[in-house]
């Protein structure tokens, strides 16, 4: 039987679900152990982390420049790095201990409760779907710009490419996309090479030759408040790095490989993000950079090197298509898992009899993705994705406190114990609060809209949906009874 193992995603991590082994309805307790080979080392964990986040270097991060100026964006990049270091530490401990299929969704079921798990499932679905939409928007804009730069006569309707991207990738996922997920890593490697080549080609060792920071770099156009506001899109530099911890069941030594692989991944991304910022801020006026849809492709154009422009075109295209592919894969699996547990209609918990894919969940979100892609600005869809991630991180910070309280150290076997508890979770809560405020500055309506969505959905779950959920099936780990219950 085909074992469709989900490699984790851009965005927040999605459940790992072996579809071939998934029962049609809620899993009976105790859960059947899904046998995964422990073959991965720190290097694999590093590659997984860098691979899933890299698309953030090609688009989206630059809106932080628009919110606070280039210096604020760089500061936000480093502050967001601290936030994600806390996320990685906490998630390494929980994921290496909650060895149940389902990622953060399963963790919430075991540590907090069904309503929290329902919300985490929605966070995952919305974060991935909005990231998929963002990728489709960038693909359409990129192709339109490239055609125009090539001098192709006539006009190109970018919306056609957006729809085509979503439908084609949904079809691939419907048919079973294991091979293309494997290809994602190679595509991402090519995209990473594009960043490195661009950095070298701009001769950073010779300031003024290509890069003109002396004339283009400005201070803080919004003052110090701009640094705070820039934290909003600063998260985009790393959104999804915590997906590395999803490999917990497959690494040889979780206690060593997870933190080591994740932290080296963080360092790599920090360096790549700083390099990307350095090149772009030395080539473009900050006002343009702050609203560009394809900043790295534009940087390639501004070097005047036609080959580099083409390379960056393909780098951006590869990164966005690979990311959108992973997003459809992971959003559909999160929705499928919720259907299987009856948090959503059980109809969505069906597996295709031939392709072994969650085909109903895949098809369900296609019209939603198309609607947002053809009619919504990129910064808005990215904001929806970031907000869903942010809610997940907030829940994670509170979740680790409950986890340590319900099962203190020594009561269950942990793959990894993060140090200095509760400092990381308190720091994470503080930085999450700062980021909510950052989103409020300029995007307050969207923040309230997103909260309204989750509040109404929660009310619907409590008043209606929960009655279809089997209570005892929500806890499948072989742990002692939690303290206080």
């Amino acid at each position: 039987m085909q074992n469709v193992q989900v490699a984790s995603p851009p965005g927040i991590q999605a459940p790992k679900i072996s579809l071939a082994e998934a029962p049609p309805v809620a899993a009976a307790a105790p859960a059947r152990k899904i046998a995964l080979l422990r073959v991965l080392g720190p290097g694999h964990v590093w590659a997984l982390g860098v691979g899933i986040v890299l698309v953030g270097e090609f688009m989206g991060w630059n809106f932080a420049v628009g919110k606070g100026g280039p210096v604020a964006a760089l500061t936000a990049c480093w502050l967001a790095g601290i936030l994600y270091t806390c996320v990685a530490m906490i998630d390494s401990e929980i994921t290496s201990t909650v060895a149940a299929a389902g990622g953060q969704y399963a963790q919430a079921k075991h540590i907090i409760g069904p309503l929290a798990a329902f919300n985490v499932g929605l966070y995952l679905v919305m974060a991935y779907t909005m990231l998929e939409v963002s990728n489709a928007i960038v693909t359409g804009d990129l192709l339109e710009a490239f055609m125009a730069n090539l001098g192709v006569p006539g006009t190109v309707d970018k919306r056609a490419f957006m729809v085509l991207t979503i439908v084609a990738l949904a079809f691939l996922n419907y048919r079973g996309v294991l091979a293309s997920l494997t290809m994602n890593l190679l595509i991402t490697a090519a995209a990473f090479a594009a960043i490195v080549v661009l950095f070298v080609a701009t001769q950073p060792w010779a300031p003024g030759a290509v890069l003109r920071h002396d004339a283009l770099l400005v201070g803080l156009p919004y003052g110090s408040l701009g640094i705070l506001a820039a934290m909003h899109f600063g998260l985009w530099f790393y959104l999804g790095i915590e997906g590395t911890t999803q490999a917990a069941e497959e690494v040889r030594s979780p206690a060593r490989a997870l933190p080591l692989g994740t932290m080296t991944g963080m360092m790599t991304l920090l360096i790549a993000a700083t390099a990307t910022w350095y090149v772009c801020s030395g080539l473009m006026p900050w006002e343009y950079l702050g609203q560009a849809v394809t900043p790295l492709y534009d940087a390639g154009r501004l070097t005047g090197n036609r080959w580099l422009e083409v390379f960056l075109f393909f780098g951006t295209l590869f990164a966005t298509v690979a990311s959108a592919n992973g997003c459809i894969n992971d959003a559909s699996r999160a929705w499928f898992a919720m259907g299987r547990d009856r948090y959503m209609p059980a109809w969505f918990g069906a597996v295709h009899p031939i392709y072994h894919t969650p085909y109903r969940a895949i098809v369900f979100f296609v019209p939603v993705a198309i609607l947002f892609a053809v009619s919504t600005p990129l910064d808005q869809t990215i904001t929806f994705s970031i907000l869903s991630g942010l809610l997940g991180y907030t829940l994670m910070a509170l979740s680790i406190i409950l986890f340590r309280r319900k099962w203190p150290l020594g009561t269950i076997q942990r793959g990894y114990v993060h140090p200095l508890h509760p400092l990381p979770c308190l720091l994470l809560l503080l930085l999450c609060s700062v980021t909510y405020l950052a989103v409020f500055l300029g995007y307050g309506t969207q923040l309230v809209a997103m909260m309204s969505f989750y509040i109404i959905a929660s009310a619907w779950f409590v008043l209606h949906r929960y009655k279809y959920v089997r209570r005892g099936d929500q806890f499948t780990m072989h742990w002692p009874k939690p303290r206080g219950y």
Partner: protein
Amino acid sequence: MKKTPYEPPKQSVAGQIFDAFLMLVLVFFTLYLPLLFKLAGGGTTTTEYPNPTWEALGQNAVMAAQWEKLGIAPEKAATIIGTRFDYALNWSALALTVVIIVGYFVFLFRYSDREYRDVIAERFGSDDAPRAR
């Protein structure tokens, strides 16, 4: 003593379709409509530049050259440069947003804990008497 397992009702196909449709409606009304009616992302101010030049837009020679390499004339750049975020804090709106976020998490954790007690009681048994639902 373990609690008697709760047996959920079977949902009809029509009920499942209705629930699925409801989620789509919820996404449409709460997330898409604010964007459609331009209610979201409105925290900006706009400065008009009649007959803009690079100098009037505050762009030096290098900046102007980069704009032109990108195929953007001063008229179009004026719209981009003239649009700035408005960070004047509306304290009542901020307070309302904080209440919404904190209230959401408080409700989420309190109600989840209530449900979690049912889950634990059914899985492990409970020291407390089972609560009527």
